[in-house]
């Protein structure tokens, strides 16, 4: 009996040791992130005000703002979402529901997972060759948006498939048994029931795209731009204009990069301000994703 006690005491010690090691490891990550955020807040908060958000970049640090870059980021994200969501969701549905399972679809499947891991600058090189030089789309908002769309496409596909896989087979069988065609099953059942998971995946993908710098620099995004793209709404019919798609652009992370690389300390503070805006937007996106997931889980429990 005393043997048991000895063995148990020893194992409990092991448990305790791992517990402590685990806590320390977790804290290293969390504290680093916390310190970074605090540093950014202390530097950036002083610079963050209305004029900072509504001014163009300038040679003078105190007059410089992020208007053109946040508008650029917004427009790029719109193009990215409009391109990546339909393509990715459709591809995900096709692969999960329509495609026969054979060696070809297996290869496609493996490669989509691989694509998600390709360094983003490779996408930049691809876009430079294909979109800028081959299709002559220019160093425009359209090119930038499509480049990031390619980048997040695999993430959207994988998220769509994961969301579809959580739907029990019994639901599909019930829908088919009532006489649905495959499209009716997808349209009336699988799409709405997987929407939560898909949306979460899309938002996470967008929040990754929003911070991307390398591929946009590769395709030739500007680092200093003192004008806005033409507005999407006009006063004359047809009231909508797509001229902004062809406009040159900059985005927040590029603006930050530009400021950080200057010797003047005041510009570095500007970069912190821009970084703060970027991080707030990213956290907001993630919060929306969490909210959607929570609400869908409350509504649909399998």
């Amino acid at each position, binding site marked *: 009996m005393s043997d048991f006690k000895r063995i148990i005491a020893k194992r409990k010690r092991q448990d305790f040791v791992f517990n402590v090691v685990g806590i320390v490891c977790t804290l290293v990550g969390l504290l680093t992130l916390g310190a970074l955020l605090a540093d950014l807040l202390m530097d950036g908060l002083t610079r963050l005000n209305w004029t900072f958000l509504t001014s163009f970049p300038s040679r003078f640090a105190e007059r410089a703002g992020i208007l053109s870059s946040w508008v650029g980021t917004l427009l790029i994200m719109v193009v990215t979402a409009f391109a990546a969501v339909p393509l990715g969701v459709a591809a995900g549905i096709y692969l999960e529901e329509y495609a026969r399972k054979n060696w070809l679809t297996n290869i496609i499947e493996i490669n989509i997972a691989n694509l998600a891991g390709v360094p983003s600058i490779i996408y930049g090189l691809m876009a430079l060759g294909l979109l800028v030089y081959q299709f002559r789309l220019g160093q425009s908002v359209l090119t930038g948006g499509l480049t990031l769309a390619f980048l997040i496409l695999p993430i959207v596909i994988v998220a769509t498939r994961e969301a579809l896989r959580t739907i029990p087979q019994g639901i599909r069988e019930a829908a088919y*048994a009532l006489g649905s065609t495959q499209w009716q099953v997808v349209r009336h059942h699988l799409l709405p029931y997987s929407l939560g998971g898909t949306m979460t995946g899309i938002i996470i993908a967008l929040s990754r795209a929003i911070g991307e710098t390398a591929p946009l620099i590769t395709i030739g995004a500007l680092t200093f731009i003192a004008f806005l793209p033409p507005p999407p709404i006009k006063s004359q019919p047809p009231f909508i204009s797509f001229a902004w798609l062809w406009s040159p652009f900059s985005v927040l992370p590029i603006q930050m990069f530009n400021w950080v690389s200057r010797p003047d300390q005041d510009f570095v503070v500007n970069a912190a301000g821009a970084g703060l805006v970027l991080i707030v937007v990213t956290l907001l996106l993630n919060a929306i994703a969490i909210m959607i997931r929570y609400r869908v889980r409350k509504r649909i429990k399998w």
Partner: protein
Amino acid sequence: MGIVRLAKMTMRDEFARTQVSQEVLDSAESQPSGSRQIKAEVEGLNFFYGKLQALKNINMVFGANQVTAIIGPSGCGKSTLLRCFNRIHDLYPETRYEGKIILQPSGINLIGPETDPLEMRMRMSMVFQKPNAFPKSVFENVAFGLRLRGINGQELKDHVEQSLRSAALWDEVKDRLRASAYTLSGGQQQRLCIARALATEPEMLLFDEPTSALDPIATSKIENLIFDLKRDVTVVIVTHNMQQAARVSDFTAFMYLGELIEVAPTKEMFENPAIKLTEEYITGHFG
């Protein structure tokens, strides 16, 4: 296999007998009564999952407006047989049918290569083992099959109400038709699935172990329902519960290892089975 043929013949005799009395009763009706007594004839049915043969030369008939129970131990092919009727097997790759299932009175071979599985699913309804209501409202669950058939507006509402009444669920849900189906209890959800299956006015109602996930009270409600439903529709029920088969069915088929061992009127089957294997299963010696 001689026994099976015998079983089929006795069943035909049974039909012939009831037919006579029916003809006397319904003599005013002009419907040809010769074909309306049998709903489906299974002839030489083989079914394969890839190389695995799950059904071996099944021959039997299903009487119109009767409840036929299919019993047998797990893996005997009873669900596989049921799922042939609405061609749900076609959703999965490498499944193959041989033989015929002739649906009366249309005479269509429902597993024939020329038959569209979609049409068969339009004409059949299935209630599954686990309640599988859609994560939509109570109303939309029942309405879905009707919408697929182009029914809308007031007609849709009437059909939904009528189906919920037939499934003995109307009184419990009439005040919360807009609530999610997932707010109902398990037994209510299964009755909702029955209402959904009834709404499309199927030729045959296929139950695949409909009460195996339910408690005894919910089970007895559904059994009573099945008993009532046969006035309007031909019912086939797969069950692993022999008491259930005895309670609800007119005919019982016993399957073992993909083969149909015996099919007979339920009373006869349970009181005096013709085959030793059936007797051993019914008395609980295996399975």
